[in-house]
């Protein structure tokens, strides 16, 4: 259960919403009547984000998605295309719920070969790296220092040579940095990502620098040398390959737009589970068909109704007609709603009871008599439905869900108690059952509980523990405290000793 909350981000309360980012890449190009193949780099691992879903929108194109050289790419192809073409790729992502331990690359990337720089670049790089080497402790601080130096406001000659008038923040700049770092045998790579910002249109990918220190990759801002990634940085591509290749197209352009919307977190969690392909996700009831889901929504709540019954009987000591009858009536109340449910219950029991008393005069045997009452109960229910339909009250229809057999037994038992112990006792037990049913209904209808138990069916184990505890309870029932009152608190005026 804990894992479900932390790993899948399942919400503890219903109606919570989670923010989902939607990133759309729009590819535009002019087609030249020939066969066209568009090869587009699509994200695989998203860094701080998890992919929920992705959509490819491309009319008239064949689509092929695959991984090539550790790089996930989509390939659209068509035999003939003419004029302006547009292809869309949409990605939905949510923040990773737990901090990702980082990309644990199993294969250590090979350290780069030290390039042979040309003069004067060679000595400039030598000088810069030499300066930094004295001031840094490990790979990451080394990279950081180098970047600070290369991005200095007042660059010295060495830095000027290295900069080579490259626009800082461009892909070329990042490539340059990688080239320089290779001089110190540092493995670095260029990644591209989208900085998520709501309602941002025509965005382009931001290049970023990633450095490997022998165990993991770490991001560095190529312009400041700061460690880490920008906030809401969705890593799109880690490849040296071009983002987009279009054979048979001209004026190729790709732009990104970002929007954010709220989605039910259970859906998000579900998708997150599927995306991570965890065992946890497969244990979720959402994997069932919707029909069965609804059945389980009710079924899983039955133990809570039983909890009410157990509590009322063993702790409070309220008598009920039959152990599970209140639960079944409570389930019926779910359909009819409370006020109607109570009215219908009273109506059916009352009419059933009076018919039962009439049947008593016919002196029937037990089972046929029960069946006769059953017939009468069904007839009464039919009549109620018909009458309420005439009156335009649709609540009357849901009466059909009343557990008729149970009601019949209730009527029989009430009538026996009526004869044996008088109407008072019969009404007392009838009302006891009804109030337990009402309580049970209120508990079983509780949205929070339903939500919780549906997402975490294992929480029923807590209930099991409660039942076991209750089974070991040997204290007084609350009503017994009143019953035994006179043992300890007999009014002395009443209980005078006999003469």
């Amino acid at each position: 259960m804990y894992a479900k909350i932390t790993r899948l981000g399942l919400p503890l309360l219903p109606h919570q919403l989670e923010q989902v980012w939607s990133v759309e890449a729009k590819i535009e190009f002019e087609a030249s009547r020939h066969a066209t193949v568009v090869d587009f780099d699509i994200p695989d691992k998203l860094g701080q984000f998890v992919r929920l879903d992705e959509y490819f929108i491309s009319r008239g194109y064949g689509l092929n998605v695959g991984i090539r050289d550790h790089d996930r790419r989509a390939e659209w192809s068509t035999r003939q295309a003419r004029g302006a073409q547009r292809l869309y790729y949409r990605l939905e992502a949510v923040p990773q719920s737990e901090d990702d331990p980082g990309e644990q690359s199993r294969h250590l990337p090979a350290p780069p070969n030290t390039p042979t720089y040309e003069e004067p670049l060679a000595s400039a790089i030598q000088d810069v790296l030499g300066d930094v080497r004295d001031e840094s402790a490990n790979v990451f601080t080394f990279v950081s220092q180098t970047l600070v130096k290369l991005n200095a406001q007042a660059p010295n000659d060495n830095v000027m040579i290295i900069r080579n008038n490259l626009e800082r923040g461009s892909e070329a700049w990042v490539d340059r940095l990688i080239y320089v770092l290779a001089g110190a045998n540092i493995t670095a790579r260029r990644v591209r990502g989208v900085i998520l910002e709501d309602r941002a249109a025509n965005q382009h990918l931001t290049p970023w620098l990633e450095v490997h220190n022998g165990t993991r990759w770490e991001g560095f801002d190529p312009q400041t040398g700061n460690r880490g990634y920008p906030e809401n940085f969705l890593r799109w591509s880690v490849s040296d390959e071009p983002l987009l290749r279009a054979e048979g197209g001209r004026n190729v352009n790709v732009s990104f737009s970002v929007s954010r919307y709220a989605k039910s977190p259970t859906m998000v969690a579900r998708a997150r589970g599927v995306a991570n392909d965890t065992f946890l996700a497969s244990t979720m009831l959402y994997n069932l068909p919707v029909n069965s889901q609804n059945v389980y929504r009710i079924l899983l709540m039955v133990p809570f109704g039983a909890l009410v019954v157990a509590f009322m009987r063993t702790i409070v000591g309220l008598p009920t007609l039959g152990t599970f009858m209140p639960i079944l009536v409570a389930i019926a109340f779910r359909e009819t709603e409370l006020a109607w449910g109570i009215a219908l219950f009273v109506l059916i029991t009352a009419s059933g009871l009076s018919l039962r008393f009439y049947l008593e005069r016919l002196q029937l045997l037990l089972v046929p008599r029960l069946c006769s009452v059953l017939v009468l109960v069904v007839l009464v229910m039919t009549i109620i439905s018909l009458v309420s339909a005439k009156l335009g009250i649709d609540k009357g229809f849901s009466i059909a869900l009343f557990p008729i057999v149970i009601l019949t037994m209730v009527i029989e038992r009430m009538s026996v108690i009526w004869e044996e112990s008088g109407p008072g006792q019969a009404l007392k037990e009838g009302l006891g059952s009804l109030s337990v049913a009402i309580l049970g209904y209120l508990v079983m209808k509780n949205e929070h509980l339903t939500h919780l138990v549906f997402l975490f069916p294992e929480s029923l184990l807590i209930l099991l523990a409660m039942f076991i505890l209750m089974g070991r309870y040997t204290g007084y029932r609350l009503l017994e405290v009143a019953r035994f009152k006179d043992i300890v608190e007999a009014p002395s005026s009443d209980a005078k000793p006999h003469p």
Partner: protein
Amino acid sequence: MLSRIRKLKAAGVVGINNRNRGYIMPHNPRALYARVDDKVETKRLAIAAGIAVPELYGLIHAVREAKDFERMVEGRKDFVIKPAHGSGGKGILVITDRRRDMYIKGDGHALTAAEVQHHIENVLGGVYSLGGQPDQAIIEYRVKFDRVFEAVSYRGVPDIRVLVYRGVPAMAMLRLPTRSSDGRANLHQGAVGAGIDMLTGATTLAVCKNRRIVEHPDFGTPLGGLEIPGWPALLLLAARCHELAPLGYLGVDMVLDAELGPLILELNARPGLGIQIANGRGLRGVLNHIDAAAPLPTDAAARVAVMRAYYEGLSDPPVDL
């Protein structure tokens, strides 16, 4: 509320949950329930052990035999029909007299043979039995109760309930039918329960519908100080019932017949706790005493002595006496 719970605890009052888990579950093996739940079986065991029970006139097993009841009661003015597996006095029909072809019930109502037959059919159908399973109907001798109880019982038969714990009589009460209990001697149906001094056999306090009373609700006669004749014999009889059905927590219902003396009416594997109210004391004290005296003697008289030792050792008389 809490202070009352504390007081009840201090008084050693046993609650239902405690009774079930602390006494019935460990001491009453399920297999033995059949001996007490089936009154025919109880009767058979009692006769075999030489314990007096009301004479069995007849047993009806099936609906088609129901009309035979007239043959069974032929020549008898009065009799009782009860379910073999009944509980709490349910389904007991007492016929006190016959006039022409009518049967007169305890409350004076006249029933036709067909109505009596219908009652038997209900019994057979399981209306009154535990769990509703098909049942048998017992037709037996109607107890003519001892005249000592005449002034304190309304119609039905007063009986003596002794709670026998591990073979030792622990507590007892006299159960007196009232108008509201419809002549039945079950406390939860409104009968009066009068606590009995275990040493002397005299009634002490009384309870009706869980409340302490001093007078019979129907007659206004005082309920305390009533001497039960032959008390030591009754105690011994109750203790011997443990041998019929070795249930650790057993309710023994006895009647004093005017002619036949003490008779065992039935045994009960789940005796209620109202006996505590009738006696104005909790059960825990005596039950603990009996537990402490284990292993208990096999001789019934010696077991009664265990009980006497407890009550003689009590310095305080029952509450309010």
